[in-house]
């Protein structure tokens, strides 16, 4: 076969709980399922020869039956296609491999000969003679720390195409993970293509002659997620490796910072956030900076008012009162001044972040109410 087309995805995390999204988490799970369905659609549309899921197809080593049914149902669309699309599944850090568990279960085995789970305590090689291709992968083992998933991957010289599959983090000073590799290891694999997974954002880890792509999740998984929602369509053959990034996710995430000093109150905040309104957007808003004394910003009220205008909205109140603006007030010797003095003392004496927030909030409430600028009214 002259060229081989591979659709490479990872970190689908089907049916993952997401406490961060609260009641919108279920909708995100549905969106993730839809994105995975689009990955399968893409395989069929592009006449892909092979689908690689480089770890964490499931969010846990013991997914529930409905989740397995969904995943297997989608994969069956590939195995029942004509000609069938081969599938390579690698156990990741979440859906790790344990003997006799998920990946060895009868249901997985029943998928047929065209579905290959790269399982086992050691690196495994699977030959796909119809593609003149060898798949090399090392499953993530449950409960095992400091795994080097690339250490055992070596190409077979007598085959024209070798593809490695691994799930782990790139070595970085600030990252400690149970499964790691570095650029030298990537280069040393000598693979025609290295299908990576674990990080949820699209990342190119190409090193030496080895093209290594971490495509990220096919759908965004939270507010903080960026550069997710894509898969890699890889074409191998004719002596080169071409990678195309194809978006399959329907959602996007955005983080916005708003300076409280520019806000006169909650209404201003609502107006500012509404500028970003989009029902496919997971918007994370941080209201920071110094709020003018007595300016009360109710982020909870704003969030409740705007919730329906976004796929998900989270507003974090990271404001602090502009205490310096109250310097004059604090010295006037009257109740407001004394109150400001007492509140400042509390803020300074706060033992933890919560105490500090409470004291700052109290200062804002007190000043606002004493000035008659709204407050609880």
């Amino acid at each position, binding site marked *: 076969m002259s060229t081989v087309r591979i659709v490479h995805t990872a970190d689908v995390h089907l049916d993952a709980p997401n406490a961060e999204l609260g009641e919108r988490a279920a909708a995100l799970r549905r969106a993730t399922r839809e994105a995975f369905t689009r990955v399968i659609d893409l395989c069929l549309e592009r006449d892909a020869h092979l689908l690689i899921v480089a770890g964490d197809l499931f969010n846990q080593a013991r997914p529930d039956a409905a989740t397995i049914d969904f995943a297997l149902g989608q994969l069956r669309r590939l195995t029942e296609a004509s000609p069938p699309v081969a599938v390579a599944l690698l156990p990741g850090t979440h859906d790790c491999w344990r003997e006799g568990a998920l990946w060895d279960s009868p249901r997985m085995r029943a998928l047929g000969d065209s579905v290959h789970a790269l399982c086992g305590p050691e690196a495994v090689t699977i030959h796909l003679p119809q593609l003149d291709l060898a798949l090399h992968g090392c499953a993530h083992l449950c409960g095992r720390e400091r795994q080097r998933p690339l250490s055992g991957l070596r190409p077979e010289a007598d085959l024209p195409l070798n593809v490695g599959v691994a799930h782990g983090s790139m070595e970085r000073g600030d990252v400690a993970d149970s499964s790691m590799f570095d650029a030298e290891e990537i280069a040393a694999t000598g693979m025609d293509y290295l299908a990576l997974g674990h990080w949820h954002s699209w990342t190119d880890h190409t090193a030496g002659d080895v093209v290594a792509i971490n495509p990220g999740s096919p759908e965004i998984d939270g507010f903080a997620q960026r550069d997710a929602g894509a898969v890699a369509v890889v074409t191998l053959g004719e002596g080169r490796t071409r990678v195309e990034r194809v978006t399959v996710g329907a959602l996007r995430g955005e983080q916005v910072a708003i300076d409280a000093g520019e806000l006169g109150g909650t209404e201003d905040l609502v107006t500012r956030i509404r500028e970003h309104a989009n029902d496919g957007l997971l918007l994370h808003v941080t209201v920071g900076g110094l709020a003018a004394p007595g300016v009360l910003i109710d982020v909870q009220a704003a969030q409740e008012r705007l919730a329906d205008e976004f796929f998900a909205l989270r507003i974090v109140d990271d404001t602090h009162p502009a205490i310096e603006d109250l310097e004059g*007030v604090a010295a006037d010797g009257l*109740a407001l001044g004394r109150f400001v003095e007492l509140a400042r003392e509390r803020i300074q004496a706060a033992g933890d972040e919560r105490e500090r927030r409470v004291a700052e909030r109290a200062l804002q409430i007190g000043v606002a*109410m004493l000035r008659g600028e709204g407050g609880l009214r």
Partner: protein
Amino acid sequence: MILTRLRLQRFRCFRDASWEFAPGLNVIRGPNESGKSTMREAIVRLLFAEKKVDTRDSQFLACTSWDCQRQFVLEGELEAAGRRLMLTRDFESQGIELCMDGDALTDEGRVRERLSELLQPWSREVYETTACLRQQEFARLDGGERVSELLQQRLAGPGAEAGAQSVIGELDDALEDINRGVSRPAKHLGPIASTMSRIDDLEAQVAHLRPIVSAAQDAAERLEQLRDRRKDVERELEERRHLQERVQRRRELEEELADLTRRCGELEKRSRQARELQQRISRLEQRLEELPDISPERGQEARELVRDLDEAARAAETAEEEAKGLAEDAEQAEQRLVAAREHVPDESLLDRAEDLQREVAATETECGVLAEEVEAAAEQRASVERTSGRQRLRYLLAVVLVVAGAVLGALVSPWLALVALAGAGIFLWASLGGPRMSVPEARRRHEEARTRLEDLQRHLSTTREELAAALEDAGARDVDALRCHLRDARKAVEDAVEVHARVQGQAESAIDSAERHRERIEGLETQLQVALKRADAQSSEELLEQVERVANARDELESARSELKGLLGDSTLKELEDDFSALNADRMGTAEALEAPELAETDLTPEEYQALLSRIAELQEQASALDEELDEARRAAEHPEADPERLRSLEEQLVAARRRLERLEEQRDALALTRELLDRAHRETVSVAIDVLEPRTGDLLSELTCGRYGEVTFDRSTLEPAIHSSEKGGEVDIDSELSCATREQVYLAARLALTSLVWPDERPPILLDDPMVNFDATRRQEALGIIRRLAEDAQVLLFTCYDVYDHAAARVIELSLD
């Protein structure tokens, strides 16, 4: 700080006006609506302009002179801390300029900062509360309570509408709202309680659902394993069943072969028997041809003929013997008849005996009648004798009574004569009651009857003896026996006659019968001769033997034919032999099928076959048990409530609810802390202020009221002022017991005291908008004295309609309506 010059452009009634002010007391005098309050407001706006001016605000718009399109401009020259300042606020251009020490600042922030340094960090609100007394505040005050509230707000540093106390009240309300239902049950739960309730509900649902989902998950995995095992068992079961079927097939073939072999043997045997029977039939047919042609009917006729002949011979012999015997019987009957006739008795004896017996019976009847008569005569005799005795006794008594009555009547009393009368009565009764017959007559009649009876009894005895003798002669016991004997003898004779006649008839009949039998024998012998001739027999015995021989041969032939028919049925021997050939071919085929490859290794020993069946049964049991386990696992896995997505969703909602609770608790804590700090600030501030305020206010009030009221206290919480009067000897009710002027004096004293309290050093210009309008002359003078003293340390601008203060002023500025 003093204001040395003020210029107003387009500010209310002042299109363009300017004034010079002196240090100390300045009196700005003019009639109503001449611009006094306008000037005061202009000074306040100049010194304390708002950070952000709302140009659409109606109050702001009202500041611009009528018919002017441009906004107003305020200019003021000030002296503060020994420096001169020029401050300009142009509300048209929204600009501000502060010239000081040769510098001109136009940046609002820097100007505000510099002014703040000069004016002390006091806000407009504080200024208006203390050093700026607006006339309308007093004018519109309708009681001490309102003033007290205002004073409290001002002391606590509130805004235009909120006081610390009311803010605390609001906070309390807010805390109550947010905490409603937390520590006490409530109909409508507050946000914390409702969130806690929601959390409890979610936790309960999660706690309920989690084990169900977990169990369903386990069951689903187990289901998968069980299905796997079930497939293994099914696979082995299939193999074993297939083997069993092949073994079964072998066994069936073997049985079929055995059956075919048996049936082949049977057919072969039947063929042989049929052949033998056919040979035998041929022999029998040949033998029948050799015997006389005696048909079964002829044979039967011959048998019957011989039998009839025998029977007829025996009957003839019997009839002859019977006739002989009957002849002897007839002779004996005749002899018995003669004897019977000899035994019949004489009939006269019976007549004599019957006559005697009748006579005896008549005599016995007569004796019985006569015996009754004797007895009746004896009874009559006895009765006559008893009646006669009683009559004699009555006579005797009657005599005695008559005698005694006659004597006593004569001697004692005439009345006693009545006794005699009674005696006469008794006599009469005795005479009437005597016997009808005499005693001798009765005795005679009795004797005669007895004699006749004895005679009759003797006659009876004689007759009886004669009867006995007659019976004895006849040989009978009595007359009846004699009569029976005679009758029996006559009957015996009749019977003997009848028997004799009958036996005689029978004997004759027997003779006739014997004669008829002999005739029939002759006929039968003729027929026998014909039969013997036909059967070539010499005697009847030989005839019967021949007949039997032919019959036996025919029976044997029929039996053989019947047997052959039973063997062949509707078939022929040829067909039977063909059937045998076909069956034998089947047998050979079955034997070949047994050797087929698919039946290889199926020749199990019984032990092996039993082991196979046991294994199949064991596998079936395993499959059945697995099916049950599968059903159980399926039920558990398909538990209607086992919805992992719902559990996830609930857990996420729980996290969200807990976050909301945290936020609410933080908000509650912030409110509580606000309240705590504000309450503390309020108390501390008020306490400090009041400690100073009370004596200062007291001194000023004493001065204003010429010593009448000198003691003022303020409530620590409400700041309600209280006036103590030594004259009254207690607290005075400000509202009801003080006049309007005195009440204003109380608040003027409080404000002036408060001014000295909050402006201890550098004071801004003190603006007094006609505060003494209601004071009498004495108290106005006292107030003026206080103001003059105040003006020693600060510039005082006194706005008034009157000229009574002119003499005390450093400068008087007159305003007119023009």
